[in-house]
């Protein structure tokens, strides 16, 4: 088998690269996104008090500490058998919505947007947030910065610290919300709703009304008919903080619905001999390789998959945009349910709809009379020994699973981070992109790196949730090897930063 390597960070030799394997006739046999393997997390945690986990896990990643913090405190609620008071759950969700607003904003303007706003073939030196601001104008750039800044303030106000929240505790939250804080957060939430609508309008003008860009979104280049996963509330509406895990089939209709604590009954992990990457799949369907269709257990967990599993959005403006998305793709609703969207570039659109949902949900929580209740904590009285908690992280369902002895000392820790769910799907999208440029052993260099970048960027993969220095400004290196493994050609593009 011929092997072709795209190495985005040559200084981390062997890590964070894209491997493309060619088959007998020079066709793309398989493609994989290799992420760095961080060692020893379980060993680092075992022997510690379980209560340390919300702070430890929030340090795993500098990008989404809030997601880890909340999945962790939810696991501790279970571990200590304590149900937080309603106000505590609402404060947690309120903080989480402010986080979602900043994270989705940043992704759209810095990573996803450039491919559409500047075009997929713009040079990488322009295809970045700077190019977006030049195109949309400085006022738009100022809105992005102001949005990040005001929501960081909310996170700090509720979470205790700017970088890593620390207010979550088993059984609740460490401090109530004052009326003064509530008023400020309500005003911020209103600004967030306006900003989300502004962002959707920009997407509408620049993408949906531009035939070339709309054709890109609706093209089959990244089309994969896989299962979709997401969290829903009691009425099957999207919820990012809490609910049941719902899985919808490629043709629509519910395949699975389970409590996050039952994840191990429904998910299994496929292992390949040549990589440490694990590929989770639906146990009930089985592993059939990196292929789509209802016979393959591959699933995706992303903003798009979350909308696919939702019957509706819980907030009115997001519902309007949600309906428009499914109308644009001509999805029908049958007895089984609504047909999902499988065009993966629509993930960027879905992310903006979630941005609007998060802003509206934040406003609903900030105006909930219970949010200022002083009852924010119930004290744990037991140690059950097992706790599993999950939230929808921006990049997919995040699950924390802890086991302890009868003193609450950790004996086992397992995390499934958002990106892990998508390992198979990311590989499939990269393969599809590569196939357009490699046939019969002939590699068309022009445009290939851009399209491969677009493939993994739409999933915004976290590199083992800790390595920050990747895409954005990475150099790309493509190494093409013959069947004996010798490098016969090297393509390289320097980073832009």
């Amino acid at each position, binding site marked *: 088998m011929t092997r072709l390597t795209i190495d985005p960070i040559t200084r981390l030799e062997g890590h964070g690269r894209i491997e493309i394997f060619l088959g007998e006739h020079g066709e793309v046999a398989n493609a994989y996104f290799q992420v760095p393997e961080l060692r020893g997390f379980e060993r680092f945690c075992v022997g510690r008090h379980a209560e340390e986990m919300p702070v430890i896990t929030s340090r795993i990643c500098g990008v989404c500490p809030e997601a880890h913090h909340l999945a962790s405190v939810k696991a501790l609620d279970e571990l200590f058998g304590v149900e937080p008071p309603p106000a505590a759950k609402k404060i947690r969700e309120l903080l989480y919505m402010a986080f979602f607003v900043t994270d989705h904003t940043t992704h759209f303007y810095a990573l996803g947007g450039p491919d559409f706003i500047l075009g997929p073939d713009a040079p990488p030196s322009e295809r970045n947030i700077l190019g977006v*601001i030049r195109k949309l104008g400085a006022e738009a750039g100022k809105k992005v910065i102001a949005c*990040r800044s005001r929501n960081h303030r909310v996170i700090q106000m509720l979470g205790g610290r700017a970088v890593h929240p620390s207010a979550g505790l088993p059984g609740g939250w460490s401090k109530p919300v004052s009326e003064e804080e509530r008023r400020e957060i309500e005003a911020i939430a209103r600004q967030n709703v306006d900003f989300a609508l502004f962002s959707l309008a920009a997407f509408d003008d620049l993408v949906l009304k531009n035939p070339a860009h709309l054709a890109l979104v609706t093209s089959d280049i990244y089309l994969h008919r896989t299962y979709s996963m997401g969290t829903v509330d009691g009425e099957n509406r999207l919820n990012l903080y809490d609910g049941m895990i719902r899985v919808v089939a490629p043709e629509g209709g519910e395949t699975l619905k389970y409590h996050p604590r039952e994840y191990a009954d429904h998910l299994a992990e496929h292992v390949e001999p040549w990589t440490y990457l694990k590929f989770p799949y639906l146990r009930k369907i089985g592993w059939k390789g990196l292929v789509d269709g209802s016979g393959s257990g591959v699933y995706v967990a992303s903003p798009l998959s979350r909308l696919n599993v939702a019957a509706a959005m819980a907030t009115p403006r997001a519902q309007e945009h949600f309906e428009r998305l499914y109308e644009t793709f001509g999805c029908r609703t049958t007895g089984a349910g609504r047909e999902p969207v499988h065009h993966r570039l629509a993930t960027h659109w879905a992310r903006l709809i979630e941005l609007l949902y998060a802003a509206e949900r934040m406003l609903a929580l900030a105006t909930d009379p219970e949010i200022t209740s002083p009852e924010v904590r119930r004290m744990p009285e037991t140690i059950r020994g097992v706790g599993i908690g999950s939230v929808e992280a921006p990049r997919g369902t995040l699950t924390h699973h802890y086991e302890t002895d009868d003193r609450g000392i950790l004996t086992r820790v397992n995390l499934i981070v958002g990106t892990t769910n998508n390992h198979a799907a990311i590989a499939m999208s990269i393969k599809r992109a590569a196939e357009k440029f490699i046939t019969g052993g002939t590699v068309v260099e022009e445009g290939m790196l851009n399209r491969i970048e677009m493939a993994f960027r739409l999933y915004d993969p976290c590199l083992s949730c800790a390595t920050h220095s990747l895409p954005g400004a990475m150099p790309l290196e493509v190494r093409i090897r013959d069947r004996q493994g010798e490098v016969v050609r090297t393509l390289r593009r320097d980073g832009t930063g």
Partner: protein
Amino acid sequence: MKTVVIGLGNPILTDDGVGVKAARLLTARLQEREEVDVLELHAGGLRLLDGMAGYQRAFLIDATVAGDCPPGTVRALTLAECGRTRNMACSHDTALLPALAMGDLLGCPLPAEIRIWGVEAADVETFGEELTPPVAAALPEVVELVMAALAAEPMGRSSMAGARERQ
């Protein structure tokens, strides 16, 4: 002259935390200096831009994995070389130079002087709160370099000009 000292990195990823550990030592040394703030940051890119806004000088400390020198080597890096460090860029938004150019474009008050020290790491892929011995041994050196830079005359905007030319 308002100065911010920023230690970048992940404090639970062995040597990746060297910048954060230096920042903690500097916090203790700089308590009396009202014109100096010390920050820990665990992701670069736009967060780094946010962290530097409003200061006249910014001093950054980060781990490097250049592989061309022994672990524990401390080097002053230029802005153009900051792609060699671990945490100046953020894979989820952008690198430092585009972030700075963006800040300029939007009229953010950015530091006139940015200085960067990189400490070559031995291990950035194992969870752990302790630095490896050669990197731990380099901590006093990088702390003294930052202290000396704080005492020195401010440099001009030459380092920033280099950043602009690259854009």
